[in-house]
């Protein structure tokens, strides 16, 4: 068996006395599309922030491609091939759509902190950024300030920025939050398209998206994973139904 793309063991996080993440063991294989679901306040976003070093865990390890990444800074983890989006849209609002994507390409194209290259004279950068814009269907918005895009477009741009660097582990935090049905379908298709062949880990509330996208699902309740498995198995799990799905499904009807 090959090394999992992401492996969490005994991961814990407390804020003061409140234990938010209470010991998580999870292994996500290469190329897997994994969804993390759970009721509000279950700690899904916290779990994301622990993996991406936005917060330091209280205990436990996070291994990316078999390498422990605890103690690294976010930018170091990113350079090892993990990229994420945010629950609240997190783009460079004052810069143009094109520049947003181009900034996301700089490091992966090896420019580092260069001050002897001009970004405009690099064809690789321009073409690379345009290719990403084409993928996320924002070519027409290329030269607009990112802050003026519609909400759905900003979310699409955020996904574009997240995948642009060529990371092979993509983490999306509620990519369809606050969207209409048609927008949700659009973003779901987009995610399928741009994460082709990559490992995808996403937090999502919309069950339609989750069951449509995910190979495996983990259910997080009060900081613990109560079930992990294929969508059908998870749906059939009585504990899951009790804790979460029941309520959510009822609410749907």
């Amino acid at each position: 068996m090959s090394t999992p793309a992401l492996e969490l063991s005994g991961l814990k996080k407390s804020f003061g006395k409140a234990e938010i993440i209470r010991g998580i063991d999870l292994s996500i294989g290469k190329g897997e599309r994994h969804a993390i679901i759970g009721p509000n306040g279950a700690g899904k976003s916290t779990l994301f922030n622990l993996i991406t070093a936005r917060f330091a865990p209280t205990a436990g390890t996070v291994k990316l491609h078999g390498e422990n990444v605890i103690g690294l800074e976010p930018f170091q983890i990113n350079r090892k091939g993990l990229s994420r989006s945010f629950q609240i849209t997190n783009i460079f609002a004052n810069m143009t759509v094109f520049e947003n994507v181009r900034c996301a390409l700089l490091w992966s194209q090896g420019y580092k902190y260069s001050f002897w290259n001009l970004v405009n004279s690099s064809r690789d950068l321009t073409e690379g950024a345009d290719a990403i814009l084409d993928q996320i269907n924002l070519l027409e918005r290329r030269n607009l300030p990112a802050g003026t895009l519609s909400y759905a477009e900003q979310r699409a741009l955020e996904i574009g920025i997240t995948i642009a660097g060529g990371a092979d582990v993509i983490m999306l935090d509620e990519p369809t939050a606050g969207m209409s049905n048609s927008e949700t379908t659009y973003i779901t298709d987009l995610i399928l398209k741009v994460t082709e062949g990559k490992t995808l880990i996403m937090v999502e509330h919309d069950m339609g998206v989750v069951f449509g996208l995910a190979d495996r699902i983990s259910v997080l309740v009060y900081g613990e994973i109560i079930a992990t498995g294929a969508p059908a198995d998870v749906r059939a799990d009585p504990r899951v139904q009790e804790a979460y799905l029941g309520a959510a499904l009822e609410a749907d009807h």
Partner: protein
Amino acid sequence: MPWLIAAVLLAIMPQIFSNNSALTIMNQMSITIVFALAYNMLLGQGGMLSFGHAVYGGVGGFACMHIMNNSGFFESIPLVILPLFGGLFGMGLALIIGSFSTRSAGTTFAMISLGVGELIAASSLIFVAFFGGEGGISGDRTDALPFFGIEFLQQEQVYYLTAAWVLISAGLMYLWSRTPVGRMANAVRDNPERAEFLGYSARWVRYYSFVASGFFAGVSGGLFAINYEILTEENLNAVSSGIILLVTFLGGVGFFFGPILGAIAFTLLQTVLSLSTELWAFYAGMLFVATVMFFPGGLAGLIMMHLPALRLGKLRLLFIPYLKTLLPAAIGIFGLAALIEMTFHVRHGATGDNEMTLFWTTFDSYSIVPWLVAGAITLVGFGIARVTAPALKDAWNEANTAQRAKS
């Protein structure tokens, strides 16, 4: 293209304004331009508010003065490369200070910059050997190796030296903003967290900007040393740091050319206005407050605001409404200025000196008539401006609308 125009303009300016005081003003402008652009690498492009940036220019300048006084070395280099040494020393200081001050932006950075600025300004009175105490350090620029036979005795020669450095520095700073690290400086300014998740350490990006800014601040210090041949504690202190913030903001932090406009406008204000009134700093302060409150984009922002109307070819629609509103407003401002000057004269004039001259009229500031006249001018001026303002607003909207819907 704008660079070519700037170069030509810099080249012919001394032919138009050839007297020494004009040259001095233009040199002052040039030095301020380099410094303000360097400052804007932090404020506008990197999102770092510094309250102590004068020290990098000052230390660069002091280093140049010491080189000037080290005759053995100074005689072996042409004067034209002296600002480079200023830059290197400014950069050296920035390398040290930046290593801890750029760890975070925002208030932490601002407070550290203020503290370090005060520290170095205060040590100018302690380390007399380097800073020369209260008297400062002076030297003679003509001791340098003649540059193609030029000894820089004349003001005009110094002007061309300064102008060349302005052009080079501004060009390099512009190019910097087009490099990967320059682009990421903008990204870190807007959203440091996102930048971190793109593989860039926000801290390192800030550090690079800071060091580059320190270099160009040092260059401006070197130019100051060449022009004035003396540096004192004034070049380091918080007042100088505050002025450069004011200049940069006045010009507009959002555009690369903003600080250039700010430096030109402020220097004119400082030199021309200070000839005619003792209260020039008061007016400069009012202008600054008005800029912050009403035009946060500064002069550059004000100009760029008209770009959409220009693209639509409707700029001329604004001309008459502008005239109708801004002319009375200007008259109102003059009236207000007259009131302020008269108050100042009454409060601070020597006893028995009741006569004052204002706008080419001489009158007795203790009699009631001038007060009434000035008051009336103020009221009428602002009154008309107020009445015509809505029309200007309509014209503005009209000029910025692509197609007017026919009703």
